[in-house]
């Protein structure tokens, strides 16, 4: 299966990257944006989807400080740039 894993800092843990992005927005004229949190996204293809949770806890995320979410990737068409036409 194709999947996407979303990893984000746990609630309550200071996310300095999110703070920096949030502080930069008003300078560009974007007002009213708050609670910005920056995480990361991992795309993968797994032969055995059942292993995904273990894989996340042992490597992709550090469960002490990060939450993760496994999303089945629906279709490649939803991926921006997947067609190649937009790529430079």
């Amino acid at each position, binding site marked *: 299966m194709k999947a996407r894993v979303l990893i984000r*800092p746990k609630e309550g843990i200071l996310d*300095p*990257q999110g703070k*920096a992005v949030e502080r930069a927005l008003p300078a560009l004229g974007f007002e009213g944006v708050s609670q910005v949190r920056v995480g990361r996204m991992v795309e993968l293809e797994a032969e055995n989807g059942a292993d995904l949770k273990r894989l996340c806890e042992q490597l992709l995320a*550090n469960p*002490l400080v990060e939450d993760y979410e496994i999303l089945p990737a629906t279709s490649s068409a939803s991926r921006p740039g997947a067609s190649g036409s937009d790529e430079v």
Partner: protein
Amino acid sequence: MRFGVLQFPGSCDERDAVLACERVGEAELVWHEREDLDGIDAVVIPGGFSYGDYLRAGAIARFAPAMEAVALFAEDGGPVLGICNGFQVLCEAGLLPGALLPNDGLRFLCRQVELEVVNASTAATASCEPGERLSVPVKHMSGRWFAPPELLADLERNDQIVFRYAPGQNPNGSVADVAGVCNERGNVVGLMPHPEHAVDPLTGSDDGLALFASLAQRAVTAVA
């Protein structure tokens, strides 16, 4: 006695670590693919950017064959010291409690700090006095040690907080000013500051020597 200093692709402080170890004993580099620690009495995991710090600092290095050997060595009570990236690796490997997060200021830090020795009975601090101040440099991007409140309380109760930044000198936002911790038995110790860069008055301080002397002493006692 003989130190083994681990070397991963991306390590960068292993040579200073070897030089520091050689002030108190013999030392050799241990390449990350090596599967045994034969002839090694104490292990130092040095700083740097093992495997490019991909994913999270220390996340990939923990799977190196040499780290499996280190886990067994630690289980047998062998003295292990993780410095900076080595500390991150030990936390990721579950050999030390807590996690290292990006500095609260998001900047790479490089400065001299004062450390307070909280627990002077670990493998890396036995030749220090409790409350002793050590002047040692820090240089890191992800040095904000974190543990949730319950875990922090457990660690304080078990004397597993080994070093704190001196009051007002916490450079990175670490919880409770923690600069270094140990495992329950006190034979595995990790800290963000760099004692291996403070072993000669030429560089401003030789306070870091005490950690290497402690490891050497513990290793000799363990053999005897």
